[in-house]
């Protein structure tokens, strides 16, 4: 039965992911308090990316679902990345 082989995420996993997300939140607040100059932005964005990945992989179930969902998400992110790159080439070199 297809219903029975559905993955059940345990409360423990969800709680651990939540703790990780809260840790990263306080880390990013602490890091941006320190003056790192231009690295502030990159540090905050990298941490935000990690947090988003945690939510996507565990809460949004990408780790346990059919592979096609993960592939679709990666594809959309690549398209978005391409748009960012093209836009900034335009603004940097016009």
């Amino acid at each position, binding site marked *: 039965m*297809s*219903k029975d082989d*559905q993955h*059940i*995420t*345990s*409360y423990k996993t*969800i*709680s651990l*992911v*939540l703790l990780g*997300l*809260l840790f990263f*939140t*306080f880390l*990013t*607040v602490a890091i*941006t308090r320190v003056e790192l100059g231009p690295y*502030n*932005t990159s540090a*905050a*964005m990298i*941490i*935000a990316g990690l*947090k*988003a990945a945690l*939510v*996507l992989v*565990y*809460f*949004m*179930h990408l780790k346990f*679902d*059919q592979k*096609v*969902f993960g592939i*679709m*998400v990666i594809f*959309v992110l690549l398209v*978005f990345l391409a*748009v*960012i790159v093209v*836009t*900034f080439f335009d*603004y940097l070199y016009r």
Partner: protein
Amino acid sequence: MEQHTQHVDEHYDHIGSKMGMWLFIFTELILFGGLFIVYSVYRFMHPTAFHLAAEELDVAIGTINTVILLISSATIAMSITAMQQRKKKLCLGFMFATIFLGLVFLVNKYFEWKVKFEHGHYPGSDTLHELGHGDTLFYGLYFFMTGLHALHIVVGLIIIGFVVRYVINDKVNPERFALLENGGLYWHLVDVIWIFLFPLFYLIH
């Protein structure tokens, strides 16, 4: 006479309905993604104004709201676990907790915006006009993006409210809970968007 036993195959495609939800989520990601690009370009063009304007935002209230949203994301994920374990009451409890946290988020947002309005930092205000183009852009984007996000919170709450009704009358049940999962996906999407809004507006100086 032939025996007439009616056999009804209810159409239920669990993966298909999740796929549809993901496709919708992609359009939302691109919508907010476009706004993030607009924000980055204007920040690149007006670095000083964005730097100073961002310092005006209340990091404390932003952090509290981030924590609230993260916890609400965990509670909606737990409601699915409870549903799969056939614990209906627990499932409903987690969903009500999510709705409560979402409402708290909106109340915080109201007080945050209220302070901004009192300081004259709202789109079209004279104060912003005097501060110049960069500040006008920053606060325009701030209100539009956090406002659009808050609208998504409202929609998410309505969706979860509907799912609560279906869980109560067992239309959403342990054999058939794609609606709960899709409602959860929407709520997580709102969380993911906030994960990027928070550092961009409140933290990066």
